[in-house]
Each structure stands twice: as C-alpha cells, then as structure tokens.
C-alpha cells in the first residue's frame, strides 16, 4: 500500500499517474465507492478517499471499519486522500466527526503503507 495526502487541488492524482505512467492504472473514484475492483490493470488507485468516508458517514455507516476492511482485502492499493484537518474544528458535530474519521483512517493507512507522500504545489515530499 502507498498513501498520498495533501490539500485540495495540489495535483495528487496527477503526480501518481505520472509516477506510474509505464504501468496500466485504474482509478477508483471515492465518490463512486464501493465499485468492483476487478480488472487486469497493474495498479489500482483509490482517489478521493475523504469523499468515500464522507458518503459512508452521511449514510450512518461505520466508515472507519468499512474502509479499513476494504483495504485489508486490497493491500496493494494506492490511496489518495485530501488533507482536511488543517483548519478550525467545526462546531457542527457531523463535520467534526468527518475530519476526526479521515484523520484516524489516514493514521492507520500510513502505518500499513510502505511509503507515504505529501503533495504540495504538485511536488512530493516523502514522509515515510
């Protein structure tokens, strides 16, 4: 597993696609999860993980558990997620729960990942 985090519009997916341009890649869109991950591609990329988490929470589902179990079954996934935690903690409970869940999930994915990168201005900084 690999993890790429960074703010919105920093070029995270673009960076990953360029890095693996010699491989066949399939992008699984977080807004459409869960989708079937069947396919012959070398590399599978789960983009916009934060959107998947947001959708799961809004349906009242245990997002943390669902995402981590999915990744347990797909340990070779490349995960891309927005940094959403560098702001004021929102007063609305569902908003703070969302940030809380994204943060906790990222910590656990980072632990399991062979590499973690932060993307800023399209540039990658290796964190792990």
């Amino acid at each position, binding site marked *: 597993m690999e993890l790429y985090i*960074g*703010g*919105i*519009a*920093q*070029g995270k997916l673009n960076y990953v696609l360029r890095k693996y341009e010699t491989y066949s890649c399939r992008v699984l869109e977080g807004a459409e999860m869960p989708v079937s991950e069947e396919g012959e591609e070398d590399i599978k990329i789960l983009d916009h993980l*934060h959107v998947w988490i947001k959708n799961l929470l809004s349906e009242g589902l245990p997002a943390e558990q669902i995402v981590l179990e999915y990744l347990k079954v797909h340990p070779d996934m490349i995960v891309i997620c*927005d*940094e*959403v*935690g*560098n*702001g*004021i903690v*929102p007063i609305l409970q569902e908003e703070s729960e*969302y*940030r809380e869940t*994204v943060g906790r999930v990222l910590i656990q994915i980072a632990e399991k990942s062979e590499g973690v990168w932060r993307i*800023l*201005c*399209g*540039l990658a*900084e290796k964190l792990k």
Partner: protein
Amino acid sequence: MFILVTGGSASGKSAYGERLLMECPEEKKAYIATMLKDGPESLRRIERHRNLRAGKNFYTIEQTHKISDAGKQMQEGSWSAILECLSNLAANEMFSADGTKRESHAIEEEIITQIEALYQRLNTLIIITNNVFEDGISYDASVMEYIRLLGRLNRRLAERADQVIEVVAGIPLLLKERKEP
C-alpha cells in the same frame, strides 16, 4: 532565478521572502503589492507589511491587476522583485467589487502569461503564495473555483520555479531545487 514561497497564514512566508529579496545581488529591488485598499482590515494589513519592510530600500509598486504592468514602472538597470501575493492577485482578477466573477481558466492563462512577461524584466522573481487547501471545508461554488484556480497556479509556477520553499513557523523547508545543468 524564479522562487516560489508558500505557507499557511502568518507562517512567516512574507518575512522570509523579503529576506531573500534583501540577499539578491541586483541593485534595484521592487516590492510588488497586490492587496486592494478596500476596508479597515486590508489597510491594517498593508500597514503591517509596510512596517515589515521599512528601511529595506524596496521600491514599492502597487499592482492589484495585470501584474505584467508592474515591469513598466521599473527604470533602467538590473532588478529583482517580490510579488506579494499570488492569492490576492488571483482573487482580484477573479472577483469584482460588484460581485461578478470571471471564468477561472481564462484567468489562469492570463496570470501565467503576465508573470512570464514580468519575469522577463527581472533577474530574480520571488512569488509569495498561500496554502489555503487543507481545511476540508466545502465553501460555495465560487470560492471552490477560486481555491482550484490558486491550486493550478501554484502547481504551474512550482513546475516553472528554480526553487520552491514552504515556510512553517518561520522555518524554510526546501521542496524543490533545480540543479544547474
């Protein structure tokens, strides 16, 4: 030399950028100010930045739109400049006082072209930008469009830049340095 400096609000990115400008070998140094004077808060911020650069012998150019015009105010000689800051410039170009908004892809191309033109006039250009991308808030559509515009500008300028620096708590972190061929 083309340098992009980014960081959060009050991270010390401006002070760092101005220090870089001080160290530039060029005799003439321009401070290109982009902030609109449109209220007590902006006047207070302008005042703070004026004090920050007092005594540094920078030639101040106020240029809230069409940034390439700043070059027209530079007389003969070899110049370096700091552009403070890209996030204001992009907002000024995108939003008008009457509440109307221009399409962001056209603005992106304009700003990139104008920065290139400005850089032609300079030996060193330091651009200060802003990391406004990490709070996870879904703002209304026009603000999201602005955030994405600034993201695209940052990425294109970072690709163009010889050096990209992130300032955290006043400490500069080197994100990119182009090696001389």
